[in-house]
């Protein structure tokens, strides 16, 4: 909870400070688990959002800050086998991910009024990840703050002087932190996010 209370003022401060030569955006974020994350929740997620702000250093380069919330959930009754033991029961599997990422972006364009602007972006920061596993009457929780990185590719389509349509794809990797819910392996997470939203120019 404290984490949320820190993020929101930080974002507001950042967006205010970026009041000149700045773009801010809000996106619908879809998530797709990868690797061990997909082993836990294989279903794609269409629940999530992302908020971001970027300040241009010049025509092609910006620095920024983003946050959001990605939710990966799944209900199933698959059997779980670990060595010689198998457990079967109805399960609720939940991963809630809140990233706070600083970014550097490069925009491929020849003028600020270009109508189609591809960009690449490097994100680095933290991921607060809450994992929960319900089976039968039992619940296991695992919450940790992870260091993470997220390379990103995207496009902005200029809709008007002030408004751009944004679409981007990001590979999110949260490094090992704490103990894994299952007690084995490293506690790292990976997922792809695809975002669709609006960017506003100031």
């Amino acid at each position: 909870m404290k984490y949320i209370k820190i993020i929101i003022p930080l974002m507001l401060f950042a967006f205010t400070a970026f009041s000149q030569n700045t773009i801010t955006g809000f996106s619908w974020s879809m998530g797709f688990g990868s690797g061990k994350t997909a082993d836990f929740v294989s279903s794609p997620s269409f629940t999530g959002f992302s908020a971001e702000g970027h300040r241009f250093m010049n025509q092609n380069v910006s620095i920024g800050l983003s946050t959001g919330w990605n939710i990966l959930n799944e209900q199933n009754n698959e059997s779980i086998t670990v060595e010689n033991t198998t457990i079967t029961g109805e399960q609720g599997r939940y991963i809630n991910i809140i990233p706070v990422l600083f970014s550097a972006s490069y925009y491929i364009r020849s003028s600020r009024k270009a109508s189609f602007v591809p960009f690449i972006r490097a994100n680095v920061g933290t991921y607060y990840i809450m994992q929960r596993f319900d089976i039968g009457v039992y619940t296991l929780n695992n919450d940790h703050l992870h260091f993470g990185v997220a390379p990103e590719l995207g496009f902005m389509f200029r809709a008007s002087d002030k408004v751009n349509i944004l679409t981007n794809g990001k590979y999110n990797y949260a490094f090992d932190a704490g103990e894994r819910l299952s007690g084995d392996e490293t506690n790292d997470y990976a997922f792809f996010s695809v975002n669709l939203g609006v960017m506003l120019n100031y």
Partner: protein
Amino acid sequence: MYKKTLLFTALLGMGMILSSCFVDYGLDSENYDLVATSYNSSYNFGAVTKFAVVDTIVHYGEDPVSHDYDTQIITKVADELTGLGWVRVYDSTANVVVNMGTTSTTTVVYGSSYGWDYGWYYDRGAYYYSWYYPYYPTGYSYSYEYETGSLVIRMVDLRLAANEQVPVQWVAVLNALMGSPNVSSRINAGIDQAFTQSPYLK
């Protein structure tokens, strides 16, 4: 136009935040059933041709599980073992002996701290909605308890007994919330599942 875009974006954002509330599948009492099995991988189940079943189920715990289903359980387990191609015998020629027991456990859950379950708070004076954190004021807390019952099915090979101990070669545990409905059909389904997820017995 710009204000409309901002309004649209804000509404879009609120909708996404709303849709991003924590999901809880809320497994109901009939979904609490668990079946766990484990076996000794060095034991040759393929060599088993005869089995015996102890015809009494031992009931443990302060609030023992009802005896009403003992006959059903013994008959069902014997049928499953016969289905493996094994022959039930009533003497010492049995390769393996199967015995069963039940236990009950009461769990009490106490809570008095902040939760993550965001919700909506309706303010009757101002007629607006806002975020709130559910919390429990000093002196107020919640508690609830639940009771689970377990059926344990154990398979031993008495020829391997030593020092008044005999190793368990296969075990199945059926765990369920006490007082749940449809007990008879769920016992049968649980025993079916225990043998389905133990293909190495054949």
